[in-house]
């Protein structure tokens, strides 16, 4: 085990470059999948004809497939039908599709957990269906969704590592390259990468706990 060699300035900078890509890809995918997931989740909740059943089938299919397969597909299969995506775009698209399906279920579940009596009360007080959704159901539902949403975001951040399958230069890919330089680096690098992922996710879960106590 060669800790000094493994943690050379050059290697550390190389891993930092990887972490940067991981964070950018994760950040973009979190924002996109949250937006799309919310829209799909609300549509599933409102049971719109035609649209809602289509979303149900889409969400179920995507949730039951491996994310690795989806990312791979975005990069290598789509060009055959004329859609060429770069490394970063393919990863963000794959992650967003998969995580949006997960988030849609969280949103739908959160909204469905609001007591029916509240909706009846709002409607009989003269609020429209849209107003009821916006002022009564969403604010309460969102609060309940915070913990599962944050754990989904943590999953997303971890799942960016699956993009090694298309050689996205993110943290795990760079770690693999450094490990390839010599077996004495293996254990120090694996330890360091574990500490990096753990720290980032730990910060996320601390933020989530703060949010929970503030809204409780």
């Amino acid at each position: 085990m060669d800790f000094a060699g493994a943690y050379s300035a050059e290697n550390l900078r190389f891993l930092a470059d990887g972490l940067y890509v991981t964070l950018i890809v994760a950040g973009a995918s979190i924002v996109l999948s949250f937006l799309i997931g919310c829209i799909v989740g609300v549509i599933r909740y409102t049971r719109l004809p035609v649209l809602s059943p289509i979303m149900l089938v889409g969400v179920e299919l995507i949730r039951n497939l491996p994310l690795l397969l989806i990312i791979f597909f975005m990069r290598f299969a789509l060009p055959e039908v004329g859609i060429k995506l770069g490394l970063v775009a393919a990863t963000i698209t794959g992650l967003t599709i998969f995580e949006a399906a997960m988030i849609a279920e969280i949103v739908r579940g959160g909204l469905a957990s609001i007591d029916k009596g509240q909706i009846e009360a709002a409607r009989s007080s003269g609020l429209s269906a849209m107003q009821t959704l916006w002022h009564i159901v969403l604010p309460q539902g969102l609060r309940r969704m915070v913990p599962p949403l944050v754990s989904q975001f943590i999953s997303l951040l971890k799942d960016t590592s699956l993009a090694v399958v298309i050689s996205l230069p993110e943290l795990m890919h760079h770690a693999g390259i450094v490990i390839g330089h010599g077996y004495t680096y293996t254990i120090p690098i694996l330890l360091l990468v574990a500490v990096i992922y753990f720290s980032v996710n730990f910060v996320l879960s601390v933020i989530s706990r703060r949010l929970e106590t503030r809204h409780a």
Partner: protein
Amino acid sequence: MDFTILTDYFDVYLEGFRGTVLSSLLALIGSFVLGALIAVFRIAPVRPLRWFGTGYVEFIRNIPLLLVVYMFYYGPSALGLPLDGFTAGTIGLAVYTSSFIAEAIRAGILAIPKGQTEAARSSGLSYAQTMIHIILPQAIKLVIPPLGNQFINLIKNSSVLTIVAGLDLMYFADIVNADTYRTFDTYIFVALFYLALTLPLSYGVRVWERRLERKY
């Protein structure tokens, strides 16, 4: 859609399918045993055991599955005891999933009202007897849906085996792809193989959840 790919390479797909099923099943058994142990640690009346259990769960849950797999793939080979991709991948899957299963089992045990433990203990049963005869048989019913969900995750997650040449569905799909140059069709069929496993399981989990909801 070129179905001749499916018929011509059915044996190759089947070989991968077997690898995926075998790895997922072995990892399920391993992660259940490990997860149950960690869950018991986490609620044990001995403080160091609780610390160990909590540390294990928090650490593993916050690092990517691929990193855990790398630890069992590159780690042993750096120490001079190389493991093949299938073995390392399956152990990695089991260790990673055990942290989630431990949490599910712990939640199941805590969901059983305290009065039952108190009643059992005051009837003269020991702590271990109370656990084995009173608490665990009831908890297991509550734990089945989350366990089912973890099994679905295991099947999807087993796709990381391909990254360490672990002889799973994604790995064998690569062979088909290299032969046919028809990436789109090749991987649509891969998706169908995964769905054949995960969709029935998802349905089963949902049915069981509904049964529980009606009971409680």
